[in-house]
């Protein structure tokens, strides 16, 4: 089935339709013929009528409005003047801004889409190479599910009977370390390939000008941040609902700054429509694909095979991570968790690992899987917002060094569990 999808995708069939086609074959074989097709349609009605998906179009709208009203450009210009002559500064800015947005958003897809929509056009026009744009955006977008609030961490905690509060807090430090590692990667890339990003465009402006820029263009962004994170902290809105306030606040801000033109609104809506509908169609197909695969028993067989031996605890842990990454190549994260947790959690307890620590490692592995070819959903989001002509291959290649950071972090966490456990221990006890 995997091969079938790849084959159809290679033939240039839109990804969503390739999923449909293979689902039809899959349900025909595993669900017993024509009734399987009816069940596929029945299952599909459930896949995207979900409140958890609502932040995707809303954060996209927020990002598009940011860009098309020119607000994003102003913020970046102001910060630019502050950073001065620094090669690849917009890539650093992506990591900084993306990490900030990760504390606002619980969904990696929404975060990636938002970053892509608001930052990429600017970076392209300034002559950044794709690897300096696509990699940082996808990687930092993925931080949304490591750094709290994270919908996935809550689901992981409740499905795996791991303390949700501790798991959420435990993600903070590893998330920030990951962001730091991304900065290191960008620095290395600039060092190895100085042409990858422009550096001699501007020199640092005098201080009064920097401060003025920050006051006028950056500080008002506090309204947006308040609308997304403040409303959650005050308990006025749930994390999902806060996304709507985020979009609304950009409209208000743009109106106050008198850059809310009719054209900006139309362009933003159009951009939001293109990417979110493309995403929803792919999710419609891929969710059902995950289900067919779980139903056929293939995924379960693989998990049991990989974890069925008596080996060294850390080798077993590596096996589990590998299972997550392989499953992640063609399944959605919720299905992966439902499938693996009943087997993994008893195993983790038997091996004597801390469940919260394991939870963070699992989140990291799941985050990896979102960006792993051939079916990483974030790759598709990126192709959707990237300029015409960008290929999946380019995107995948750009993201590779950043994926290595996640792997490195997992290894670091094995050596020093405190990276995850220190903070929750301090706060909760």
């Amino acid at each position, binding site marked *: 089935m995997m091969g079938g999808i790849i084959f*159809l*995708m*290679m*033939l*240039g*069939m*839109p*990804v*969503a*339709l390739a999923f*449909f*086609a293979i689902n*039809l074959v899959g349900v025909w074989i595993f669900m017993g013929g024509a009734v399987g*097709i*009816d069940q596929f*349609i*029945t299952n*599909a*009605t459930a896949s*995207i*009528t*979900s*409140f958890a*998906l*609502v932040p995707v*179009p*809303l954060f996209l*709208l927020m990002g598009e409005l940011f860009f098309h009203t020119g607000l994003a450009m102003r913020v970046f210009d102001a910060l630019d003047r502050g950073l001065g002559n620094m090669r690849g500064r917009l890539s650093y800015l992506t990591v900084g801004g993306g990490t900030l947005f990760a504390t606002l958003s619980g969904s990696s897809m929404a975060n990636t889409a938002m970053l892509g929509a608001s930052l990429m056009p600017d970076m392209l026009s300034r002559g950044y190479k794709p690897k300096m744009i696509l990699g940082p955006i996808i990687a930092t977008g993925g931080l949304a599910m490591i750094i709290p609030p994270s919908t996935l961490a809550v689901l992981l905690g409740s499905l795996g009977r791991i303390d949700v509060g501790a798991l959420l807090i435990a993600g903070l430090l590893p998330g920030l370390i990951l962001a730091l590692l991304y900065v290191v990667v960008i620095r290395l890339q600039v060092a190895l390939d100085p042409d990858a990003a422009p550096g001699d465009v501007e020199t640092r402006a005098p201080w009064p000008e920097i401060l003025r820029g920050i006051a006028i263009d950056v500080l008002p962004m506090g309204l947006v941040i308040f609308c997304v994170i403040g*409303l959650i902290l005050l308990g*006025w*809105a749930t994390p999902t*609902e806060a996304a*709507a*306030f985020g*979009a*609304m606040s950009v409209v208000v801000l743009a109106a106050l700054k008198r850059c809310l033109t009719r054209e900006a609104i139309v362009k933003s*809506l*159009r*951009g*939001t*429509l*293109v990417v*979110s*509908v*493309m995403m*929803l*169609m*792919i999710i*419609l197909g891929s969710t059902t694909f995950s289900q067919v695969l779980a139903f056929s028993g293939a995924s379960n067989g693989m998990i049991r095979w990989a974890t069925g031996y008596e080996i060294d605890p850390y080798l077993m842990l590596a096996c589990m991570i590998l299972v997550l990454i392989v499953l992640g190549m063609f399944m959605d994260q919720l299905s992966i968790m439902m499938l693996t947790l009943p087997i993994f959690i008893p195993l983790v307890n038997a091996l004597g690992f801390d469940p919260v620590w394991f939870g963070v490692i699992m989140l990291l592995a799941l985050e990896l899987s979102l960006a792993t070819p051939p079916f990483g959903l974030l790759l*598709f989001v990126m*192709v*959707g917002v990237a300029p*015409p002509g960008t*290929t*999946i*291959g380019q995107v995948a290649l750009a993201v590779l060094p950043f994926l290595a950071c996640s792997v490195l972090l997992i290894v670091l966490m094995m050596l020093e569990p405190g990276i995850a456990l220190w903070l929750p221990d301090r706060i909760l006890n």
Partner: protein
Amino acid sequence: MSVALRLYDRLIEGLAVLAAASFVFVTVAIVTDVTLRNLGITSLIWVSAVVEYCMLFAAMAAGPWLIRIGGHVAVTSFVDMLPGSLRRAVGLSVMLVSVVILVWLSWRAAVIGLEEARFGSIDMRSIDIPGWLPYALLSGGFVLMAAEILRQIGRGARDLGSRAQH
């Protein structure tokens, strides 16, 4: 261009506009609900169910338009390496297979939807939603996507690759 075709084109664009409008509606509905709730006035219990259905509606209403503008993500790097005539043949077959799949799905969705309607079943969410509605949306969306692919073939397009401009 015949009147029917012109009407059809209007329909596809109109539906896309409605889909975009539904996102605006979602934003406004959630903001209103949360505001009223926090002011202690009332809670709009219908918001979550309607918003969830807006996701399906938007996907189905804008799906055909997305095909028109080539906005569905596709992997074209491999096909682009094929010689011209073969590439056109592959592209055309992919389009025809897609049409068959979509028409088939649309037909089955319509059959199930009619069954649900006859039975009078309800999807109980934060408010009751008629059980046939999701199937009607799927059926309508799929058939229009198939029609749009045929329309593209009629216009001489030979692949469904990404050529979105945005």
